[in-house]
């Protein structure tokens, strides 16, 4: 019986093609925009998640406090309150995975006839672990290089591209940073932009001791500008922050009423807020698109109501020859659901096509997940049932005598 009714619903749709097509158009636009918007939203989420994952997870950056010299205050990170020994002490705390003291600044690099300005990061090998940074070729430097301040360097992809000829192997070559020669022992894996849009591959990593002695120069030996700390897990981050604060205040012999002489920046919080922003944006896009789906559904209801009125006599005849109320209900519901599912399929194709087109034209990251397609489909069927139900029930509740008399 259901097969017969499906056939009839198909037939009924075919009888009034223009009207069916216009009704479907509402669903096509609704589903199409939901799929497209979700693809764009999820694409943005994916792009942000990618960026965040290149930063390293559960990171804290501890920055030295500001200094004041003759009333002139420097910004954070220029004081000399943090020490390498602080980093070693932090490494002893619970739930701390990696700790790396960092001294970084921009310097001019020279190789042969070429030169390039890049960010020089003086640190310890643990920096790479904390940032989840791989070595693409060659090898990293070790603790012994830091102890003996050897002149070795790891260089990022952008640096390789700007200092060396295409195809030239940078390993073992000597580049100069501020007149000091460094031997390239490894190249870094590509990371792309960070959340601020800075190219993370435009970096050269050297041992902390070498950087401080040969490149930057430090007035107070053993001091460092910042320390990167990775907590064992996201859950452990608040307790790690507390214990770091307590430890550093104790080590720096700060009184209870004194301010901290360092800043702790939670990179995970920044990443979370970026992810949250894109998630909200994605939801918002979906919500706006859903409104058009709703409008499409109302269109279906409108047409079905007209259809019921037009076919009152037909309903009366069907009832007279033995259709039960639920048969009439099913027939009209099926018609509504078929229109919405057909509209959904077309909308799905247009939405996916639109997403691919957006991707081709704008280079925007697009993610079409099976989930979003499934959601769109379920919602469309749901819309058909929901908005088809009222007209169908109206049809089923007709009095057969009245319906037969209807002209």
């Amino acid at each position, binding site marked *: *019986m259901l097969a*017969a009714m499906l056939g009839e619903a198909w037939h009924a749709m075919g009888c009034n093609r223009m009207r069916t097509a216009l009704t479907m158009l509402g669903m096509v636009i609704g589903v199409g925009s939901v799929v497209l918007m979700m693809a764009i939203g999820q694409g943005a989420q994916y792009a942000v998640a990618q960026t965040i994952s290149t930063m390293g997870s559960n990171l804290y950056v501890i920055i030295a406090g500001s200094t004041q010299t003759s009333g002139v205050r420097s910004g954070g990170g220029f004081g000399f309150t943090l020490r390498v020994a602080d980093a070693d002490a932090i490494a002893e705390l619970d739930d701390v995975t990696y700790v790396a003291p960092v001294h970084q600044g921009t310097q001019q690099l020279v190789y042969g006839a070429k030169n390039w300005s890049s960010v020089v990061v003086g640190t310890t090998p643990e920096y790479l672990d904390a940032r989840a940074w791989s070595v693409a070729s060659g090898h990293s430097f070790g603790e012994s290089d830091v102890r003996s301040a050897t002149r070795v360097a790891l260089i990022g992809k952008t640096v390789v591209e700007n200092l060396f000829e295409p195809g030239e192997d940078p390993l073992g070559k000597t580049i100069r940073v501020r007149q000091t020669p460094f031997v390239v022992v490894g190249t870094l894996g590509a990371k792309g932009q960070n959340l601020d849009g800075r190219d993370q591959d435009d970096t050269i990593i050297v041992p902390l001791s070498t950087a401080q002695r040969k490149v930057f120069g430090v007035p107070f030996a053993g001091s460092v500008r910042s320390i990167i700390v990775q907590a064992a897990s996201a859950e452990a981050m608040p307790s790690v922050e507390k214990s770091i604060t307590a430890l550093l205040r104790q080590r720096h012999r700060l009184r209870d009423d004194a301010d901290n002489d360092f800043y702790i920046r939670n990179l995970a919080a920044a990443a979370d807020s970026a992810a949250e922003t894109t998630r909200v944006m994605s939801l918002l896009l979906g919500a706006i698109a859903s409104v058009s789906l709703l409008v499409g559904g109302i269109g279906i209801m409108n047409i079905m109501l007209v259809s019921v009125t037009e076919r009152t006599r037909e309903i009366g005849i069907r009832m007279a020859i033995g259709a039960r109320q*639920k*048969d009439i209900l099913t027939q009209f519901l099926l018609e509504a659901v078929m229109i919405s599912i057909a509209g959904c399929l077309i909308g799905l194709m247009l939405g996916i096509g639109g997403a691919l087109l957006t991707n081709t034209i704008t280079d925007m990251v697009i993610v079409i997940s099976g989930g979003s397609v499934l959601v769109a489909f379920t919602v469309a069927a749901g819309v058909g049932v929901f908005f088809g139900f009222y007209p169908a029930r109206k049809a089923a509740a007709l009095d057969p005598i009245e319906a037969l008399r209807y002209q």
Partner: protein
Amino acid sequence: MNEAVIRVAGLGKSYVTAAGLFPALKGVDLSIARGEFVAIMGPSGSGKSTFMNLLGCLDTPTFGDYFLTGRNVAHMGNDELAVLRNRTIGFVFQGFNLLPRMSLEDNVALPLVYAGVAREARRAKGREMLARVGLESYAMSLPARISGGQQQRVAIARALINRPPLILADEPTGNLDSHTSEEIMALFGELNDEGITIVLVTHEADIAAHAKRQVRFFDGLIVSDVRHDRAPPARMPAPC
């Protein structure tokens, strides 16, 4: 022949109108045996249409009882009534009431859809019934392609498809010319000879004359109930 297909006892129907309760049918007793051919007559407003709607299970009575093939229909629910309309009663209407967008074959087989019959069987039976009324060559045509008389034949084929014991015809010749009316009435006569009970509503005396029994309504009550042993041969006096 003694078994009553239809037996009504004290059957009444009142409508609520703006002027108050309007009694359309005021308590009717009637028994129709299997194989009878009954014409129900009366002026408009006499209650005959109300009575037919009750007989056809399209409406439920306000009071009284209605036994259709021995079962009391008066208190049945909508779904049970629908099944009776599907299996026990075949309807023929004045306006033919074929579905305009369906082929004649599909129109004839439509009651089988609601009886849950499979597609192939529906098709075969639809053709068989169309052949029964002599229209099998039009199986795939739409109703608008054939004449009124042919449409009424198709409607009769549809009424017959579930082999119901009872056919209810409401002014079946009202939209037809006298010659075609004759043909349709002859077809009813044949069906009656096969043992099918036929009840038809008409206000034309010459149509009613084909039936073996004439029941006349007036003002919501039966005022006369006349039987012939044999309907007069189907020969119409020339129309004036």
